[in-house]
Each structure stands twice: as structure tokens, then as C-alpha cells.
């Protein structure tokens, strides 16, 4: 599903964020990406949905060679990937409902279906009552849940989640984790960057640790492995 071969990423300002990443993530896997702040986790995720392109190396996602992708084709690859951005990336002038619905409008879903499905996922993340609020009127955790709702609404083949529980209280975090696990059971591949030790150590999955741009550990039912 995701195949990276000798991936290097140097940003235009000269910062090298990834150095020689080799990894294969299969269909239906659930993978935690852990590591200290600034290690390159977000960069790793951005390469998957092509917000960034590697400086060197080959990536394929869902059978597409991401590096060689024509501009015209990018949107169609992204549609199979639900992204929960670390900074949420909600459209500021659209309500919670409209933000989620937008992802469905993009793929030309009939309006009737959009209405039903959008309300359904907002209920799943516990935000049905905030459907008409603008992002600015929502708390950080609420915005994060809107971002989660948007990422899952189209039942994508892959979900890339960059600290999806970063702003949530423990109870809500567990709610979201149960949701992601359920989605994973139904066949969706999940790649999740996290700093949450408790979650990683309780809900045991494959753990990939990145430090200073390199993979330092890759365990099938791994542990978080860092203090805090």
C-alpha cells in the first residue's frame, strides 16, 4: 500500500528532515509513527499525500508512483487518502458541517447522500450539535474532531493521521482511537503519528520510531519507548 525506498527530504532552506527512509506498509495495517519533536514524522506523512515531494527516492501509494505523478492526477490520489492534519487545516469560512461536506462534494457525491453521511460522521466524533459552528467558534479539540470527521467521511483506503489526539482529553482520545480501530477493522490502512505513550502502549500496533530523519526502530507490536 505504501512503499518508500531510500527517501531523502531536504527543505528549500537546507534542513534535512528525512535521510534514507525504507519502509513498506501493507494494506490494512495500523502503524504508529513515534519519535521526538522535529524528528521528521510530519514530513514522512506529508510525502504520503504529496504535500511535499522527496528530494531523492521512490514512493508509491496505492499503486501510484507519487514522485512522478502528473499535476492533473494528484487530486485523484489524494481522494483515496484521508488526512488528519496536525494543524487541522479547516476552511475558516465554512461551518463544521460544510467542512466535512466539502470532501464529499469534491468527489461529486449526490447532495442527499452528503447530508446523511456528513451528519453520521459528525455524530461519530460527537459534534453533531456543533454542525453549524465555524472553526473559530470551536475549541482546539473540537476542530481536531472536525478534521477527523472530514478525513474519514469518504471511507478512504488510507488514513494519515498526524497527532489526531494531540488536543483531546483522555476520554475523547479513547473515543477517537476506538473509531480509528474500527475503521481499520473494516479494511482501511492507518498511519498515525503520535506522542501519546498511553495509547501506543495500550492499543498495541506496529511502531515505527523516527529519530533525526532515520528509522531507528520498527516493531510489530511495539511500545512507545520514550519517556513522555
Amino acid at each position, binding site marked *: 500500500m505504501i512503499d518508500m525506498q531510500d527517501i531523502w527530504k531536504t527543505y528549500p532552506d537546507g534542513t534535512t528532515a528525512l535521510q534514507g527512509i525504507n519502509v513498506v506498509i501493507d494494506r490494512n495495517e495500523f502503524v504508529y509513527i513515534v519519535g521526538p519533536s522535529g524528528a521528521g514524522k510530519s514530513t514522512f506523512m506529508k510525502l504520503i499525500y504529496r504535500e511535499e515531494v522527496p528530494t531523492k527516492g521512490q514512493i508509491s501509494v496505492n499503486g501510484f508512483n507519487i514522485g512522478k505523478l502528473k499535476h492533473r492526477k494528484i487530486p485523484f490520489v*489524494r481522494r483515496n487518502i484521508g*488526512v488528519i492534519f496536525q494543524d487541522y487545516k479547516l476552511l475558516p469560512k465554512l461551518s463544521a458541517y460544510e467542512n466535512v461536506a466539502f470532501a464529499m462534494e469534491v468527489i*461529486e457525491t449526490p447532495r442527499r447522500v452528503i447530508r446523511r453521511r456528513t451528519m453520521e460522521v459528525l455524530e461519530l466524533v460527537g459534534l453533531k450539535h456543533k454542525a453549524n459552528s465555524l472553526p473559530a467558534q470551536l475549541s482546539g479539540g473540537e476542530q481536531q474532531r472536525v478534521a477527523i470527521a472530514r478525513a474519514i467521511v469518504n471511507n478512504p483506503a488510507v488514513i494519515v493521521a498526524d497527532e489526531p489526539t494531540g488536543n483531546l482529553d483522555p476520554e475523547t482520545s479513547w473515543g477517537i482511537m476506538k473509531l480509528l480501530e474500527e475503521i481499520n477493522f473494516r479494511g482501511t490502512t492507518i498511519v498515525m503519528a503520535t506522542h501519546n505513550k498511553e495509547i501506543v502502549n495500550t492499543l498495541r500496533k506496529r511502531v515505527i520510531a523516527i529519530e533525526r530523519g532515520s528509522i531507528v526502530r520498527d516493531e510489530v507490536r511495539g511500545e512507545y519507548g520514550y519517556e513522555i
Partner: protein
Amino acid sequence: MKFSTVARHFREGFKNVGRNGWMSIASISSITVSLFILGVFMLLALNVNKIADQVDSQAQISVYLELDTNKAKAEEIERSIKRIPEVKNVAFVDKSEGLKRFKESMGEKGKKALEGYEEENNPLPDMFEVDAFDPQKIGFVAKQIEAFNETDPEKSIMEVKYGKESIETLFKITNAIRNIGLFIVVGLAVMAMFLISTTIKMTILARRREISIMKLVGATNSFIRWPFFIEGAIIGFVGSFLTASVLLFGYGKIMSKTSSTIGLYQINYLSLHEVGFVVGGTVIVLGTLLGVWGSTISVRKYLKV
């Protein structure tokens, strides 16, 4: 693209105008201001053209003959005038015809004053009305006709009139306006585009992030572009519709007086009815196109993410 998506783009286009609040108002204002200036100028230019045409068509030389000029002499003068290459037409108006016209032009009031003047004691001279091919040359033609007296011992020409001063200044003004008119219209259009594109640049900056997010969620360029396109059209249409309404309403009020006299000339202005369609139509079409153009270039730049 499915029909429901088209409908969605229209809905979003309309909603965006509301969502962008002040930005929409700023855009509408800049379109309104630009087009208003352009519209005022258009009305001016159209009227000047009309005035110039009227002056052209009215510009005529009157050649008055001495009272004692005989028929043979008059015919000789007519032939001489016709020989001037710039002359288009010469019409002889004999004194009884002249008196009849004079009485008519004086109306009821003049009837009393002119009573008693009939054929036998007609005080008016015979005359020619001379048209030139090019109305702007009538001064030149008039001079040549005046010069006939120099070779004529009887000096049969009493006076040559063509409303010298008034017509010459009028021609100067209309020519100037006609010539710089196009220049100014182009200049104003460029200024309007500049004003609008500045507004657009501000809009773009505000939307850059939104566009990049839309792309990350999997929207294609055309999907992103359409609502912007429609929003631009709405803003352009609203702005130009406002302009056209104010412009034409104002014109109607100001032009309640439809004619006046400049020197010898009777000038009719264009009625609201005559300019309404052209000016209103031009302003609205131009405004809508400007709006569409503006929003199209405003997104294009940020679509390559």
C-alpha cells in the same frame, strides 16, 4: 461534471459573496467606481459626437446678394460658387421665399412687426445657401466666395455669413474630445483594471490558504475555480448594475432639458432612451467580464500546489 456539481458551484459562488463580507463590498465598490467614471465619460463622448454631427449637418454658408443684383448676375455667381471644388451644393433662396421663412421663424409675435412687408416692398435680399463637402472647410469656402467681389466691378455680394466664431470653437472642442476620447476611454479601462486587480490581490492573499487546503482535500483545479468564477461574475454584475442604474437615473434627471442653442445652432442632446441601452449594456457586460477576469486570475496563481 454532474449537474448537481454545477448547482453546487453556483450555490457556493453566491454563498462566497456573503462569506467574504467586506472583501466583496470592496470589490463591488472598485468596480462601481471605475465603471462610473467610464460611464460618465461614455455619455459625454456620445453627446459630443451627436453635437458634432448636428453642427456638421447644420453648418452652412449664407451668401446675401445686393438688392439690385439682376437674375443673370445671380446665375453667374451661382456658377462660380459651384466651381469651387469643396462645394457640395448651392441653393438659391429668392427674397420672397426668404421673407416667408423669416415670418415663420418669428412666429406669432413677429407677425405684427412684419405686417405690411409684402412682395413689392420686400426688404430682404436674394441669397444662396452653400453646403461644403467637409463642414470643417466652410470658413475656407466662405473666404473664396467673399473674394468674388474683388474681380466684380458691381460688387454684387453684400455679405457672407457662417457663424464664424461659434462654429470654429465648437469644431475645436469636438475635435479635441473626439481625438482624445479613445485615449481616455482606454486609459480609464486600464485604471479600472488596475483598481480591480489590486482588490483581487488582497483577496488572493486571504484565499491562498483556503485554496491550498482545498487541494489537499483532493479538489481539482476546476472544482476550486468554478465558485470563484461565479462569485466574480456576481460581484461584477452587482457592481455594474448599480453603476448603470445610478448613471442612467442621474442622466435622466440632468437631461430633462433636451436641447439648447450654441451660437446659430440648435443642439439636441441624446435622450435617456437613446443612450440607456448602449451605455447600460456596455457597463454591465464590461463589469461582469471584469469580475470574472479578476477572480479567474486571482485563483490561477495558487492552483499549482
